[in-house]
């Protein structure tokens, strides 16, 4: 469904997942003229995404409890959509000096001026290089979930899950529910800890009782759920045929004598998510390195405003904390922009924010505790061998990266210039998060002190005729 037409939008929102939608709702409800751009054909983001046209949903059960929560939010969005200018299939790929952005829709480049901007760009699965991770049959847990949930196709016949935290349990359940075979689920962390945690919090959030249900279903299906285990290697001729796994210590380093081989044809990796900060970086927001939140995240105040005045960042793209937190953050940012544009008083804004702030505080404590168990430990970045591909696009190995580091290159941008690391089509998304940690491990410099890759437009690949069709001139931001 299309949105309404809004003349001269006062607020631009990028991303129509839980965070972006929640922000749009609150702002539009207060009277703000909102325009929301989303690169996907349907709103809802990864978690509340809807099936493509052609599929008819007979029973939403397999979509899980998230679907029900998403439905409530999407219904709220539907009710106010006539007042919101919602553009789907609209990819924002650049921002420029003087608060101008460029987006791509239906083969045409367009420019758009912004004053207030809310970035709700989401996150993607953390890429983890290990021997064999480039073989067909190795997927991210999120990728597998998209296949199972949105396309109703199993990712393979004998599936191994390896990762940490609740997401891989959710996906494993969806695979089992669809009649797939899960050989085992490897949890790198100490699962008993987070079971205890979930129990402590289960009264407040449905999602936590959901977590316990997932574990029960997995046990009932007879699938081994191995705590403190990791994948070390994927092997196979032209695709995955077996997986080498082992027990790991508290730093996630393999205990060698526990090594064993599983016959599987598919490996799903669920080592958490990395925030998509391309646009917050491009706009010039200050960032900090927060491994517990997925990596580089924009610094924000309590209104979700970044260091660039009028630019807000919400949801997993501003620090991975899940869909419930994303919605709260979105609402806060929506209310804040409504206040700063003069639609509601400071008093009214405070009143509207209050329930969400309370929930956020409670949920935040739980997130902190979960993060302490699931944030990546050093062993995760030591799995690659010298001949393991790190940069998939340019086919650079760990050996290539290490020789550049040995020559004194301990800065990401210099490493990029020397080796072409991060210069391929994925634009560093699949290698940079790991390389950051690899440099830290090799150089003994803390990862937080290693400058990240510079961000330049376009943030995603766009056809050259789209660039050609862009009207007017653009001034690139100083510092690129």
């Amino acid at each position, binding site marked *: 469904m299309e949105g309404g037409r809004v003349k001269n939008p006062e607020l631009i929102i990028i991303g129509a997942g839980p965070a972006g939608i929640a922000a749009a709702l609150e702002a539009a409800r207060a009277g703000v003229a909102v325009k929301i751009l989303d690169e996907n054909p349907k709103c809802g983001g990864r978690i509340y995404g809807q099936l493509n046209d*052609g599929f008819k949903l007979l029973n939403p059960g397999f979509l899980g409890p998230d679907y029900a929560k998403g439905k409530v939010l999407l219904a709220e969005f539907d009710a106010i959509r006539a007042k919101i200018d919602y553009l789907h299939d609209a990819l924002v790929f650049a921002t420029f000096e003087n608060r101008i952005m460029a987006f791509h829709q239906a083969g045409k480049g367009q420019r758009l001026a912004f004053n207030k901007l809310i970035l709700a760009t989401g996150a993607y699965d953390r890429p983890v290089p290990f021997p064999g991770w*480039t073989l067909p049959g190795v997927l991210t847990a999120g990728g597998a979930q998209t296949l199972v949930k949105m396309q109703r196709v199993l990712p393979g016949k004998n599936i191994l899950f390896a990762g940490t935290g609740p997401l891989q349990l959710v996906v494993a359940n969806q695979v089992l529910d669809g009649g797939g075979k899960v050989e085992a689920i490897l949890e790198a962390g100490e699962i008993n800890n987070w079971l205890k945690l979930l129990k402590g919090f289960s009264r407040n959030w449905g999602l936590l009782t959901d977590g316990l249900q997932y574990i029960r279903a997995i046990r009932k299906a007879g699938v081994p759920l191995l705590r403190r285990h990791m994948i070390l290697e994927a092997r196979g001729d032209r695709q995955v045929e077996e997986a080498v796994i082992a027990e790991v210590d508290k730093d996630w380093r393999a205990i060698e004598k526990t090594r064993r081989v599983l016959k599987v044809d598919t490996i799903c990796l669920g080592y958490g998510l990395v925030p998509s900060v391309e646009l917050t970086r491009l706009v010039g927001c200050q960032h900090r390195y927060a491994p517990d939140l997925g990596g580089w995240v924009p610094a924000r105040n309590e209104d979700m405003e970044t260091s660039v005045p009028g630019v807000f960042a919400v949801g997993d793209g501003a620090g991975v904390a899940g869909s419930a937190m994303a919605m709260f953050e979105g609402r806060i940012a929506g209310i804040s922009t409504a206040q700063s544009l003069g639609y509601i008083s400071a008093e009214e804004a405070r009143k509207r924010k209050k329930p969400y702030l309370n929930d956020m505080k409670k949920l935040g404590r739980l997130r902190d505790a979960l993060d302490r168990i699931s944030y990546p430990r050093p062993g995760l970045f030591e799995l690659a061998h010298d001949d393991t591909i790190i940069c998939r696009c340019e086919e650079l190995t760990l050996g290539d990266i290490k020789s550049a580091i040995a020559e004194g290159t301990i800065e990401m941008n210099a490493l990029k210039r020397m080796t072409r690391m991060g210069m391929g089509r994925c634009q560093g998304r699949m290698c940079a998060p790991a390389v950051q940690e690899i440099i830290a491990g090799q150089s003994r410099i803390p990862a937080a002190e290693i400058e990240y890759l510079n961000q330049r437009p376009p943030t995603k690949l766009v056809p050259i005729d789209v660039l050609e069709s862009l009207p007017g001139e653009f001034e690139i931001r100083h510092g690129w």
Partner: protein
Amino acid sequence: MTQDLRIRKDVQRGQAFEIEVDGLPVVAYEGETVAAALMAAGIRTTNQTARGDEPRGVCCGIGLCYGCTMVIDGVPNTRTCQTLAQPGMRLETQKGLQRWKVAE
């Protein structure tokens, strides 16, 4: 219907049709991505890398990694996970980066 990896419960699929993969017919349904149709048929290698000539396939599933690219209707480097299957679509396993066709 031959065995494939499609899950048949809880959804009803639309119209079935054929696409062509390296000259062979593969079934796809309305609303399916090319990647999903290939995975369902057990076809995993979408391209061979430029330098190492290694097989690659669907990895991130959300259009970021470019692992699943193929030559689709003559256009190389097309992400199968972001492309809806269309009747009569012709796919080729990509070798290296291949060449872009330049318009006359």
